[in-house]
């Protein structure tokens, strides 16, 4: 890759951030060149976020249908599954699975809710809330 070929396709990065990659200068010597992104990377990064969006959408659907507790939304939004979340809150997996049931979640004690809220870095009140619909491209303003 020559310096002139270093892609500058902005997509994932904000204005003040860029990455460096290795490219050849006109004498054929390797130098570090700044790049603000590359289309194939932007496409695949978007794809990864679409997957997360889908999981959040599904969680919201389940919550509205009364199948899951609001915990499911926050779990999906934080890109976690039951096993990862259980490690963060230091509950066992079956406990987390139980807390995902709406009826159980409603009766949870404040100190347990606190532990979840702490992991997601939100308040206990926010933990009990969930939006009606998913924000399109919500990751841009997480």
């Amino acid at each position, binding site marked *: *890759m020559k310096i002139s070929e270093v892609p500058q396709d902005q*997509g*994932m*990065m*904000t204005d*003040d*951030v*860029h*990455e*460096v*990659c*290795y*490219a*050849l200068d006109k004498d*054929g*010597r*390797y130098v*570090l060149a700044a*790049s603000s992104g*590359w*289309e*194939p*990377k932007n*496409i*695949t*990064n978007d*794809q*990864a*976020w679409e*997957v997360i969006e889908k999981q959040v959408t599904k969680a919201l659907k389940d919550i509205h249908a009364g199948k899951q507790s609001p915990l499911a939304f926050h779990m999906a939004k934080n*890109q*976690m599954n039951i096993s*990862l979340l259980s*490690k*963060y809150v230091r509950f066992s997996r079956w406990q987390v699975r139980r807390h995902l049931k709406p009826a159980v979640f409603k009766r949870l004690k404040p100190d347990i809710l606190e532990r979840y809220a702490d992991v997601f870095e939100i308040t206990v009140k926010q933990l009990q809330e969930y939006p009606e619909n998913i924000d399109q491209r919500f*990751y*841009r*303003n*997480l």
Partner: protein
Amino acid sequence: MKIDFKHRHSAHCESGVSSNLLFHYGIDISEAMAFGIGGGLFFGYLPFIKVNKLPLTTFRCEVGGIFKRLTRKIGVGVYWQKFRSPEKAMDALDHSLEEGIPVGCRTGGYWLPYFPSAFRFHFNMHNLVVFGKEGDKYLISDPVFPEPVVCNRKDLIKARFAKGALAPKGTMYYLTSVPEKVDFSPAIIKGIKEVCRRMLKTPGPIIGVRGIRFLANQVEKWPKKFGKRKTSLYLGQLIRMQEELGTGGGGFRFMYAAFLQEAAGILKENRLLDLSQKMTKAGDRWREFAVVASRNCKNRASDSDSFEAMSDILRDCANREAEVYKELMAVVH
């Protein structure tokens, strides 16, 4: 409290941290050189290890391997520690900082507040250097960012104790002794040998050049085996592994080519310049693969972007790389 630490923007976190830490102690070493001596180049297609339910493909060696091999080869003393308790981990960090020692930390990427939101995934393979503390805020040289950044204590604890696969467990490390003079030549030769051996001679079909060929054969089968949607996800994951996680482009192949070029000067061996160019070509082919694969991800593929064509590019990458490693073996023998 702030240590006078020179932050140098790098392409990859671990090789960047390694070269920056050594530079702090007066060993002038570039990132590419650190990567090459540390034997960072690798290929492995590991379909049985899943990241987000998708198979893992890696273009670099194991986490920590670059730093470990590099410091051993040039005779630098290193102190390593893992922790159970976050409190103790932070105390140990503070203590070292007070003594004026910049400390390398392994962290997860998700909890670092200065990461652009588009990059915030759970991956636990990130390295950074902490070089100061002001009140509750830590000054951090994260090599993949242009400037030093700031992170508060709570977030740093979370990042150091990120959970999941390859959890960092608060790992920190710093240099304890540095030789007065370093002779890079033998270290370079050893580093090259390691990479060649690993890429050509690892038994089994999934590692090294054979691994690339294996992947090529698999890619062709994906559409039939998995259907459109899943294939698209598999390809996406592959490209992210190749390009996204601070690889310097072309799945670290360009960084390695830069290393070979630098090594040519140190060893006074012109054949390495030629091999650097060949490695660059291999990297260019990897980039072509990424372009075609991403078109397939987005359903924008034209007729020439078929899966057979992609596999052919991969086989070409394998052939080109195999040639480079074989010739390298002859040069450093």
